[in-house]
């Protein structure tokens, strides 16, 4: 062999930006999402939910009008038989939509044999994965923003009065929390789509995780709390300690974090998400709403937790995808 090979300079780091082609991936993926039949079904489902719950709520609100300074927020949280409140619907609709957007993100490309062709273009894998994630997140944002506007529109027509500034701000933050919550499931489903070569397996695994947190985690958390911090003598300190351990464990679930953040945003009268002793309530005016800034402070840990979980799950998928063999 000629010695030419050795004299060529070796570059220490990879050239160019890892985001080359990111825009193209996002545009393509969003176009796919928005035109897919899957999305149509979910859109119909969620519009039905919004219209149905808002209609039922409106009837409830009309009966008790004038009792609440935050009427618009009640649109999201009030439930009336036989339908639960819109927010409780969201608790399981959001994961469902997010999972359905991402469970075949990576393995789908392998199954269609397009992966090696796409990666043979001058882009890095980073751009493909992040592009797919951002496209999913944008689609989620788009859908939820549309529903948010729909509910507000229905509210204005139905209630006959405009929302005040704080209601708009609080419900916008609620929208943001919902999108962050969707991000977790999107990142989870995407990580599974890297791990499993079959799309169906990835979908099933994501749904299993969702069911686990939805149904079993609360039971497990209280059981674990009983084991970790048992009440032996029935002292109030022991009971308190157990409740606190139980709460810490419950908050490992994104569902709990989302539910707490959502409640604090939409119900301004909520002043604590943890345990509160009667002594701590001394001097408080019960039922008085907190200002927005204080509610924000209340849910700041929850927001951080949701964002951190999304980033961690995305990082997991990212690392696995970077190491994956491309040969189909």
């Amino acid at each position, binding site marked *: 062999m000629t010695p030419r090979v050795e004299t060529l300079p070796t570059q220490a780091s990879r050239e160019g930006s890892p985001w080359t082609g990111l825009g193209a991936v996002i545009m*393509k993926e969003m176009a796919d999402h928005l035109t897919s039949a899957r999305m149509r079904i979910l859109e119909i489902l969620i519009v039905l939910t919004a219209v149905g719950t808002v209609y039922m709520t409106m009837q409830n609100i009309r009966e008790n009008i004038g009792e609440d300074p935050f009427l618009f927020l009640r649109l999201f949280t009030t439930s009336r038989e036989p339908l639960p409140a819109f927010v409780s619907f969201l608790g399981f609709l959001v994961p469902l939509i997010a999972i359905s957007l991402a469970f075949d993100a990576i393995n789908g490309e392998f199954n*269609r044999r397009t992966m090696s062709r796409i*990666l043979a273009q*001058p882009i890095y894998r980073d751009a493909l994965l992040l592009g797919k994630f951002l496209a999913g997140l944008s689609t989620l944002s788009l859908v939820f923003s549309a529903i948010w506007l729909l509910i507000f529109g229905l509210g204005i027509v139905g209630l006959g009065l405009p929302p005040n500034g704080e209601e708009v701000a609080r419900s916008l933050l609620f929208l943001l929390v919902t999108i962050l919550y969707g991000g977790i499931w999107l990142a989870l489903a995407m990580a599974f789509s890297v791990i499993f070569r079959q799309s169906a397996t990835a979908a099933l695994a994501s749904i299993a995780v969702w069911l686990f947190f939805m149904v079993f985690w609360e039971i497990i958390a209280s059981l674990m709390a009983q084991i970790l911090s048992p009440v032996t003598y029935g002292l109030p300190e022991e009971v308190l300690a157990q409740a606190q351990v139980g709460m810490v464990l419950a908050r490992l679930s994104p569902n709990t974090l989302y539910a707490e953040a959502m409640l604090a945003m939409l119900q301004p009268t909520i002043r604590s998400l943890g345990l509160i002793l009667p002594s701590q309530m001394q001097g408080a005016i019960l039922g008085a709403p907190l200002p927005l800034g204080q509610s924000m402070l209340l849910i700041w840990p929850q927001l951080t937790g949701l964002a951190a979980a999304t980033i961690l799950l995305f990082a997991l998928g990212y690392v696995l995808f970077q190491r994956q063999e491309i040969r189909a």
Partner: protein
Amino acid sequence: MSKPVIETKDLTKKYGDFVAVDGLNLTVNASAGESDDKQPGVVFGLLGPNGAGKTTTILMLLGLTEPTSGSVRVLGFDPARQTLSVKARVGYIPDMVGFYDELTARENLVYIGKLNGIRREQIYERIDQAIQRVGLSDVADHPVGTFSRGMRQRLGVADVLIKQPQLIIMDEPTQGLDPEGARAFLTMIRSLKEEGITILLSSHLLHQVQAVCDRVGLFYRGKMVLEGTVEELARRVLGIAYRIYLDVEQPTNAVTEAFKDIRGVVGVKQLGATSYHVEATSDLRAEAAAAVVKSGGRLLKLDVEAQSLDDIYARYFEEVNHDAAS
């Protein structure tokens, strides 16, 4: 001499204990000519049984898999570090190329164009040219889901032409094509070569490789065991490259002796009363004809057959297996 299109040095790839590619030294030069004028490209064929390391080598050339050790240069770039430069200049048609079935041919190509960062106004022009080139203009706006295997393969060529590559790598390009489709595809490879594009293709369809490749490399267990033109390989493996058939009226022993005296003749056989075949290391038709005439015979018929890659391949693996067994 310009720098080689592909140059690997002791390239090795291991998956755990399994050695997929073992110390590969491969050099593919752009063309034999010295000048910088537009020369026809070179078609290099990678041959070998399944699992011999062909696809792994291709993935390393594209930077899609990192080598365990050794070095690779493609068009002078290191695919592991200068991935974008390599991938912007090299077109890759994977084995059983896949497209987004719900999108049209044109939409599929637009996505590729955008990923390559081609300016919007240029994309459509290049796509039209590429689609026309591969003869898919009529169906450019049909969803790819309706395409046949051959059409997909041709779309795969259009797909790499968009980036105007200097090198095209094809993995098993004619696998699964009907004979007519395969022939059309080989014609397309030749016309790409005429444009100065270097082509590396892997295949185990030997007669097709022989039909288009200027040089071939034979892979076996991660090593390139033979490399050269088909003629060179025939000489190395079979000892002969050509078999010349002659019919001579009233043959005499003098004719046989005259054949044996020609330099480069390996063997002479008399097949029937009047016909001979002469095995030679190069094309010696003229010399054989002269020998017949000189020795007083009357030449009736003269024919030549180049050794096929099939024979070389079969013989080589026969020997390898024989050695392994003993």
